[in-house]
């Protein structure tokens, strides 16, 4: 499989205070040098707890934020590539029509005053590919059916739809420009259990149909394990472990990944680390291992940042003292 999207050493920090009289020099270090690749046609899952930087990373990938360091390289399906840091406005347009983003909360990401038709076509109209009103309407109708809604509903507004249906609309909006890559940011977290599976099945179907590469961001490990081909685990703005989803479900080498997987409700057991701990302080620049303060296996060496290294061609790991072949 060829590489579709490369994220190279991305970092971003946000100023802690904003405004005219803000004190400078205090930052939240959200993403601290993250590199990974998405292969064409694969689904890459990014998991981690809140505040670990997974959403920020995804937003860096579409330049909703501009990275302080690092770059994103996109290899188009029809040849050629985009280097995100060098894109002019027009090229950014092209990039963003090929890489689409679906947001977490469908209630808040659809403008309540717009009809579904204008929501679907708002971005499309700006693009050079816009086929005109008549054809555009037709495509919108087709897209509605593709995501399991009625074509007649195009003239209704978001309030007329349930959460699951709204998420279908969000997906339709992303797909109408025939993108190559879809970024799904917690797309099922806000939905009822019985609706989540409908959306997951829809995404699987669409992935097949449109040959999509996907970046799937979630905190639910069971869902991510099911849905993704490869998984990267983030902690404090760093990827600490990366492996194919099936492999990760069987064995985890990083102590944090292991803790995370053992906290899944259906797998919880008494052996869990139970002591309360202080949450990490992301206003300090990262120096050592991001998991140092919570890690039961830490040693002095861990104060120096471990590199994310390929260990067997399938798995990458950033840890000096990995869990040995423990299968739980």
């Amino acid at each position, binding site marked *: 499989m060829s590489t579709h999207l490369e994220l190279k050493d991305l970092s971003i920090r946000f100023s802690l205070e904003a405004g005219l009289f803000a004190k400078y020099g205090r930052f939240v270090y959200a993403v601290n040098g993250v590199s990974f690749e998405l292969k064409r046609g694969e689904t890459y899952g990014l998991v981690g*707890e809140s505040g670990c930087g997974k959403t920020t990373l995804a937003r860096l990938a579409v330049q909703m934020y501009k990275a302080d360091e690092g770059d994103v390289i996109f290899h188009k399906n029809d040849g050629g590539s985009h280097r995100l840091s060098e894109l002019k406005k027009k090229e950014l347009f092209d990039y963003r029509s090929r890489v689409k983003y679906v947001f977490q909360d469908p209630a808040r990401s659809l403008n309540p005053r717009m009809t579904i038709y204008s929501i679907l076509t708002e971005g499309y109209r700006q693009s050079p590919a816009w086929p005109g009103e008549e054809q555009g309407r037709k495509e919108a109708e087709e897209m509605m059916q593709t995501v399991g809604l009625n074509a007649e509903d195009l003239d209704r507004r978001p309030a007329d739809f349930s959460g699951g249906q709204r998420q279908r609309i969000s997906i339709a909006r992303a797909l109408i420009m025939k993108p190559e890559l879809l970024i799904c940011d917690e797309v099922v977290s806000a939905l*009822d259990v019985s609706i989540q599976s*409908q959306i997951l099945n829809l995404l699987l179907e669409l992935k097949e149909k449109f040959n999509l590469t996907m970046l799937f961001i979630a905190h639910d490990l069971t869902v991510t*394990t099911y849905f993704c081909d490869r998984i990267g685990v983030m902690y404090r703005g760093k990827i600490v472990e990366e492996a194919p989803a099936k492999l990760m479900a069987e064995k985890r080498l990083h102590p944090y990944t292991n803790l995370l997987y053992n906290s899944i409700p*259906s797998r919880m057991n008494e052996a869990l680390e139970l002591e*309360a701990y202080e949450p990490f302080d992301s206003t300090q620049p990262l120096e050592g291992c991001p998991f140092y303060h919570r890690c039961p296996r830490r040693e002095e060496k861990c104060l120096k940042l471990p590199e994310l290294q390929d260990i067997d061609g399938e798995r990458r790991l950033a840890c000096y003292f990995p869990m040995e072949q423990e299968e*739980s």
Partner: protein
Amino acid sequence: MTKTAKQTLVRIDDLKVTFPLRRGALKALRGVSYTMEEGEILGIVGESGSGKSVSVQALMRLLPEYAQIEGAIDFEGSSVFDLDKKKELPKFRSEKTAMIFQEPGRSFDPLYSMEKTFRETLRLHYPSETDEELRARSIELMREVQIPQPEERLSSYPHQFSGGQLQRVMIALALAGNPRLLIADEPTTALDVTIQAQIVELLLKLRKKRGMGIIFISHDLDLVARIADRILVLYGGLVMEEAPAAELYKAPAHPYSQGLLHALPAFGTHYSSHELHTIPGTVPNPIHPEPGCPFAPRCSRAKDECRRAIPELERKGERSRRCLFPLDGPAAQAGADPAVDGSADAPADNAKGGAKS
């Protein structure tokens, strides 16, 4: 799990709650009954709009004045509706029952230090004690919920705590009146999974130590099966199924419970080899519910008689279900997830991994 003859703590009988809205009467609960023993953990599972929160709000008398409530709610043998609003209700809400909520961050006054927050609550129970004595009690409570360095943390403000710690403090405050029943309404939904695991362990520990009953409400059946002794599955304002947690998790009798269990993938399954079962359709409309079983429009087993009248809640041993065509034990077991009561460790994973390849 306690099996000795215990006293009934809560008895809810045919509870109906209707909210008269301009759009029509919203039937949040359409006849819910359950009982709960002392020291028991009852899990209530349901999707949004199923009525899971309304049932406990009714128990705590937290529903607004305009809500129409029918049926009976007894706590330790006497009706909660007889409680005098001024004199008895505040005591009932702190010394008999206590509640923790989904978003701990929103349950605190940001301008109160923890010491002041605790003092305000504790003063209700110990009006004659000095600030110093109350402070000692606060530290004791914070220690009980495993907040590190409680002496120092007492002078902190809510924003200086993480979500998980705030939920611990919430629990500590709830414990202040030594309640017989703790109601936890989606207490871990806003928390990260590693923190969720800690809170669940804490609640289990506190139940053991204090012998208080817990009503644990969640949409996550996996999680409820982990913590509860018994599970109540609500849908469309009705109890669909009630059973001991392990049994329900292993072999649900109601098609809806089964649908909930199978709707999300079991850990370790992969899309390349497992299709996800879905429940088609959406949750019922609480203003214009269909005449029959609320789940009938989405149920693959539904026949005409399901749509005619609401089926009775039928009792069979320790379990009850509201279904005309319940699932047979053995048939349901074949696809069920074996992971429950902590037995879900490596061997189970491997078994699953083997099965899929």
